[in-house]
């Protein structure tokens, strides 16, 4: 039986009932006044992240430390200043394969022994390969830090790239990529990067599982030999250690790492997209179309960066944003509509995204482009800008909550040379953005002809694309299979 009350409970409930009845008897007092409206917030507390302190060892290894007092876990990251964009054009994916081979055996230890060593310390090792840099991370209990550093030293300084392990890693990476290729959002984003960065070093990041088979252990060894050098790396540590302690540890375990000249080309800024392009990627299982409308953006070091974050927020960052209100609430074209951006060393990319029924593809694209052009033509109202800033500033500290997120942002700041403006002063930088700056930024980035990617089901037929002037049709691996002009196959 629901809500069985014992005698004490009944008496207590009866007392409350009497009090409530008495309250209700007085007009206008059915509830306390303070319940009627949201409360006024307390004064805002400032974000005070630990300072990032840096030093350089004699072998060129940069050491960076940001102390997190009281943390029982230490995160150590070796940041290699070479990422996916540094993979040679003929072997895309080699940066990822090289990073994944770290830990797959050393001159003295097998892959199994390395894994056992790491796990016995209660540690976790993982790698993250970005466009411009690679992060090798170990998270470990504070008391086991030295042994974890010793393991990391073996893994990074004495790796072996034997064919058996290379093939295992290639197989695992292929499975992972095939799994990701089931996600239309991944496919759409990859096609967008391939299209926007065609002929540019950033294009190689759009590789598929099929190209991994071409990479050999020699390619991996070459990539390692070229980029995995102390003068092309940073030792980044977060936990209880200060800079002096970090330098001591770095010297002890990585001081013998031999310096060598490193030729690391910095990708030039890509050429702007000069014509509207529409690409359809065929994913036969889809019931709805995933539409992406995107273009190039700026690197994080640009003065446009913070205004662009606010602009992106206004366009599609929250459920009050223009895309959502237009495509879902007003036109009912999409269940979901949003916009995102990603930033690299010398460039960036943004895209608006909506999930729509096949017959809504064209009108949805038109509305997205229209919203962008409006933002480039007219000032947004102040309340809209302030709301976007409130969201961004209020949510900023959450990025630093977990040790791994904290460490990854720290690595990014170090790898891209971002400085305090992207650390402690980011909220301040966001608060300084105003309507004028947002308009200027929109005028710089939104009027350019966009790239439109539609991930959809080829079985829908070319009818759904008839309103577009020219559509390039691709298979899931990015191979152009045909073009369609005004709904007619060519």
């Amino acid at each position, binding site marked *: 039986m*629901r*809500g069985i009350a*014992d005698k*004490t*409970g*009944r008496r207590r*409930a009866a007392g*409350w*009932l009497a009090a409530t009845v008495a309250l209700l008897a007085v007009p206008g007092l059915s*509830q306390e006044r*303070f319940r*009627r409206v*949201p409360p*006024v*917030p*307390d*004064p*805002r*507390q400032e974000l005070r992240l630990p300072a990032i302190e840096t030093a350089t060892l004699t072998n060129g290894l940069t050491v960076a430390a940001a102390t*997190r*007092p*009281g*943390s*029982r*876990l230490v995160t150590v990251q070796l940041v290699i200043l070479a990422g996916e964009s540094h993979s040679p054009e003929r072997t895309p994916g080699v940066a990822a394969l090289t990073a994944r081979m770290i830990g797959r055996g050393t001159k003295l230890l097998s892959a199994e022994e390395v894994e*056992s060593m790491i*796990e*016995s*310390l*209660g*540690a976790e090792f993982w790698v993250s390969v970005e466009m411009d840099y690679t992060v090798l991370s170990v*998270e*470990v209990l504070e008391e086991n830090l030295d042994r974890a550093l010793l393991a990391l030293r073996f893994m990074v300084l004495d790796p072996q790239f034997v064919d058996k392990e290379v093939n295992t890693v290639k197989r695992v990476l292929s499975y992972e990529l095939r799994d990701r290729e089931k996600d239309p959002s991944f496919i759409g984003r990859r096609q967008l990067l391939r299209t926007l960065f065609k002929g540019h070093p950033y294009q190689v990041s759009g590789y598929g599982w099929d190209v991994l088979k071409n990479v050999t252990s020699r390619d991996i060894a070459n990539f390692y030999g070229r980029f995995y050098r102390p003068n092309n790396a940073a030792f980044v540590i977060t936990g209880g250690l200060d800079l002096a302690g970090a330098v001591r540890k770095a010297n002890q375990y990585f001081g013998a790492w031999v310096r060598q000249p490193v030729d690391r080309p910095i990708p030039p800024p890509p050429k702007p997209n000069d014509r509207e392009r529409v690409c359809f990627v065929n994913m036969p299982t889809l019931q709805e179309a995933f539409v992406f409308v995107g273009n190039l953006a700026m690197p994080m070091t640009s003065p446009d960066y913070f205004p662009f*974050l606010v602009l*992106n927020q206004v366009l*599609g*960052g*929250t*459920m*009050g944003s223009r895309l*959502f*209100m237009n495509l*879902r609430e007003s036109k009912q074209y999409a269940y*979901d509509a*949003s916009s995102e951006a990603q*930033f690299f060393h010398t460039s960036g990319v943004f895209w608006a995204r909506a999930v729509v029924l096949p017959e809504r593809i064209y009108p949805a694209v038109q509305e997205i482009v229209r919203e962008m052009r409006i933002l480039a033509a007219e000032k947004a109202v102040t309340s809209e800008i*302030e*709301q976007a800033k*409130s969201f*961004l*500033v*209020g*949510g900023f*500290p*959450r990025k*630093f*909550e*977990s*040790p791994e997120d904290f460490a990854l942002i720290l690595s*990014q700041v170090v790898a891209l040379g971002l400085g305090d403006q992207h650390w402690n002063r980011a909220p301040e930088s966001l608060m300084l953005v105003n309507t004028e700056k947002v308009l200027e930024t929109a005028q710089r980035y939104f009027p350019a002809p966009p790239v439109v990617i539609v991930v959809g089901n080829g079985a829908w037929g070319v009818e759904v694309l008839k309103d577009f002037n020219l559509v390039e049709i691709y298979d899931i691996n990015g191979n152009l299979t045909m073009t369609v002009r005004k709904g007619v196959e060519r």
Partner: protein
Amino acid sequence: MTIKTRILIPLASLAVSLYVAMAAPLPQAPVKAGPPELYRLRNGLRVVLAEDASLPLVSVVVAYGAGTVRERSGEEGLAYLMENLMFQGSENVSPLQHINFIQKVGGAFNANTTFDKAVFYETLPSNQLALALWLESDRMKSLTTNPFIFARKREELLMEHRRRLATEPYLESFAIFDNLLYPDYAYGHPLIERGDELMTLTEEDLTAFHDAYYVPNNAVLVVVGSIQAARARELVARYFETIPPGPAVPPLPPPRFSQDGEAVMTMREALLPYPGFHFGYRFYPLQTGDKYTLKILEYVLLHGGQSRLNQRLLRKDRTAYYLSGMMEDRGGVPALRVFVTNNNAVMAERCQKALADEIDRLRRDLVPEQELNRAKNLFKRDYYKTRSTFVDRALTLADAAFAGAPVDAGDAELDPYMKVAASSLMTLVNRLCSPRNRAVLNLGAR
């Protein structure tokens, strides 16, 4: 850097000054971190406060003893529907505004329902603690719904669940295995099964459920973050103290099992891409210290590349294509659950034998010291990791408060886990890994 924000529902208007308001006097600098404080309001609400000034954030958790175990026969899906309707409006917060208020200040939120609890939580800038308490107290005090909202939400959940069933071919098997592993209706029925059960629920069912279980005397409120305890106590009292208690909530019935031998079932489903199986042991009855031993057993078997099942099934024998598992606890009865898919039926059979063989090995041979230490160290790291964010810490404290465990044990809580001996593991496996505690659900044509 990727900036990703997902938008789901429409936005209602709200003044944007919530974040930047500077009207109140500046508070004193909060202490860096302190032990949690547990107290109870007059209406029975248990409150846990924990200060941590490492970031200017605050997490608020409100947990109700209102999980599926409170559903009666014919009410399946009620706890889940209730959780979702808690975002659809209360006396002073119109439908969906709850989410809008939190997102506008840069906050994040979520909710979930388990067999025993419905848990609601949010993380916001620390100066917005009052906002979180205002929102949570309003929906505790005065959930409002109407036939339209009720019917729409019910329909949405049904459609969403059907989509999941269509895209996650193994989903239904997990619900079936719940029943098999916990053959007690109250503890074994899932959050949602086929989804159709939602359509028989009425608004009256919902209101009665809220009145009975979404009451302060059946709830725990946890606040963790950069707060001043005195200010937090004041705000908690302001928003929650005058909410009337509900009727006394009966304690959960103890789980009852009437299984004599191994429970084995086969599910044949044409849409399953691979054969596989669910395999589990219920650990019942427990003795003092068993829960610590079981946790270490979980790490020996399942956590890390060097864990026994990972090594045997995925690497050595290569009979498994996919492996996952965990230890869960329902009503004080823990259970080890393992889910495996295999390339074909022959592999599935071999794999199941190998799994049973690994359990037998634990019966016969002591786990070597080095392996035991590996398991303990991984557990220790996870222990700290699961308390590394404000919301994770708040959720952990809510669990402790519900279980009547100390909320301020600190690292001493780790000690009994670190003292588990290899002989305890062997004894436990011999005592409890018996056919009458075992359940197997075979998947696909075997």
